[in-house]
């Protein structure tokens, strides 16, 4: 089976986080699948053509950190019409801001007999657009609508997202699309741990006191504000620090000002920007608790990443996090700072219960990237399975 994957977004960014990590980990493994011919594509918008990416060089760069992404580009070109009938076009990258809008690409592929598969990480730009940049929502509406219209199979990382998509198609009175839940892996790339050094300054901060860790880009949806509210009102006199690890994102000027003007900033409350994987790994391993007060997520990777390192998590009481964290997590109302503070204090003031929770986490079996990739391969193969049920309407 020939599988074409547009990785233009991954090829153009200088950082690997979130979706880029998924694309990297899955493709590295898919390239080893003997029954698949994987053709990686990088869109050259100036010449209106895909450039074909060299698979070996892709792996060399993205797995082994050898050479650069641009070294993986070949001079071989592929027009949309070159993708043959019977092939699969698999959208796994974050393509909703691409100039090659899917309302243009997908009907052309469909007309040529190409089957279309897509990994949809979440539909937050539709269900909670207030947490997204408006240009993202604008592009996402085009991306999602096109896939609802043309995709043969949709992969999602949680049942909650599939339910949200089915709710949307029902509301639009259109047929549901065949959907498959593929939980995401969380095993880190080993070479990261080997090559990267832990930031000593961060390690010094982490050793000061017990700390509550929040990992992820600072943006309104992540609700960092709640942790500060909980700290200011209920935790300020406790021997607990707050460490927020993540870059400053969109629409958080007010929070950023509040953070930097805080009397405890850089004393008990710390913001770590641009930490490498080894440092994040260190922060997770040594945190007292990981807090995840988010309003919505596609998957909630920080929960898994914390569990893998034996660190308990307190998280928002929302469907997607309950699906991922199960009864290994403790949950609170993301609009109630006291509820968050109560859970933190319950662990802080009762060592026995805290260590029982920690021990219980060792039973948690995280999904691996090998498993995620295998499920995606099965889903792609199902496009050719005659017995397949096309829709679950």
């Amino acid at each position, binding site marked *: 089976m020939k599988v074409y994957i547009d990785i233009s977004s991954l090829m153009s960014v200088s950082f690997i986080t979130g979706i880029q990590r998924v694309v990297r980990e899955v493709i590295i493994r898919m390239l080893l699948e003997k029954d698949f011919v994987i053709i990686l594509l990088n869109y050259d918008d100036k010449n209106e053509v895909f450039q074909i990416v060299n698979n070996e060089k892709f792996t060399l760069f993205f797995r082994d950190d050898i050479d650069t992404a641009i070294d993986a580009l070949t001079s071989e070109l592929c027009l949309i019409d070159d993708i043959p009938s019977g092939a699969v076009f698999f959208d796994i990258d974050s393509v909703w801001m691409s100039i090659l809008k899917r309302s243009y690409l997908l009907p052309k592929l469909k007309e040529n007999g190409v089957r279309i598969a897509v990994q949809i990480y979440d539909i937050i730009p539709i269900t909670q657009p207030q947490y997204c940049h408006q240009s993202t929502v*604008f592009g996402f509406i085009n991306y999602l609508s096109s896939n609802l219209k043309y995709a043969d199979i949709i992969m999602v990382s949680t049942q909650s997202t599939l339910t949200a998509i089915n709710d949307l198609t029902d509301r639009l009175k259109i047929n549901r699309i065949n959907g498959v839940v593929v939980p995401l892996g969380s095993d880190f790339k080993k070479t990261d741990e080997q090559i990267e050094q832990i930031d000593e300054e961060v390690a010094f901060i982490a050793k000061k006191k017990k700390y509550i860790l929040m990992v992820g880009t600072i943006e309104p949806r992540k609700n960092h504000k709640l942790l500060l509210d909980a700290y200011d009102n209920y935790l300020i006199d406790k021997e607990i620090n707050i460490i927020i690890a993540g870059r400053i994102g969109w629409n958080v000027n007010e929070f950023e000002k509040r953070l930097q003007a805080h009397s405890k900033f850089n004393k008990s409350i710390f913001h770590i920007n641009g930490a490498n994987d080894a440092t994040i790994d260190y922060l997770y391993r040594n945190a007292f608790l990981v807090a995840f007060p988010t309003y919505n997520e596609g998957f909630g990777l920080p929960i898994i990443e914390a569990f893998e390192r034996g660190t308990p998590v307190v998280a928002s009481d929302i469907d997607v996090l309950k699906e991922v964290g199960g009864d290994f997590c403790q949950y609170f109302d993301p609009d109630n700072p006291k509820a968050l503070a109560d859970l933190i204090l319950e662990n802080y003031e009762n060592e026995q219960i805290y260590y029982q929770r920690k021990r219980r986490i060792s039973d948690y079996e995280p999904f691996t990237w090998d498993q995620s990739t295998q499920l995606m391969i099965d889903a792609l193969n199902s496009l050719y399975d005659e017995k397949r049920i096309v829709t679950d309407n």
Partner: protein
Amino acid sequence: MDDMEDYSIYGGVFDVANQNMTASKHFFQFRREEIMLYAVGDPHNVDLLNLMDLDNSQFLFMAYVLLLQRFPESLAYHRWEKAGKLPKTIFQKQVLRTILRSHEFSLNSIKVYNNYTNSCKDDMTISGQESSYKNLDNYQKMWIYKFYQRLPVKFRLLIKKIMGYDMI
């Protein structure tokens, strides 16, 4: 424009997003019509006739989205606000003239067709800046780019001038 019936799903998804946005007491700076318009056609070849009937604020938004591939920044809104009360034809002509002559437009590969605001027939089709660099194949471009990145700034500027500003 193609049969809008084919694009109803885009409008439907917008309606759901818009209801959720309104429920959270926020508002989109675009409307259903812009979503539908964006769904239509080739992103590299923009038929300006599709924009002709829009009101001035919609026209400004779509001209930016289709020709510059981004939302107008607040400064642009502010700048055009005063002109917003101009008759449609004059407003559209001014916006298009500014965008099509901009350096930013010259850097992209978008071509416009049916530029009804231009009286000169020869200029009915306009595209981003053509340059000697653009005529090279991708393999040559990659090598030049890698070499270029290692050069001091003053040489880079000189090369940009010779090879064309769309090089980077």
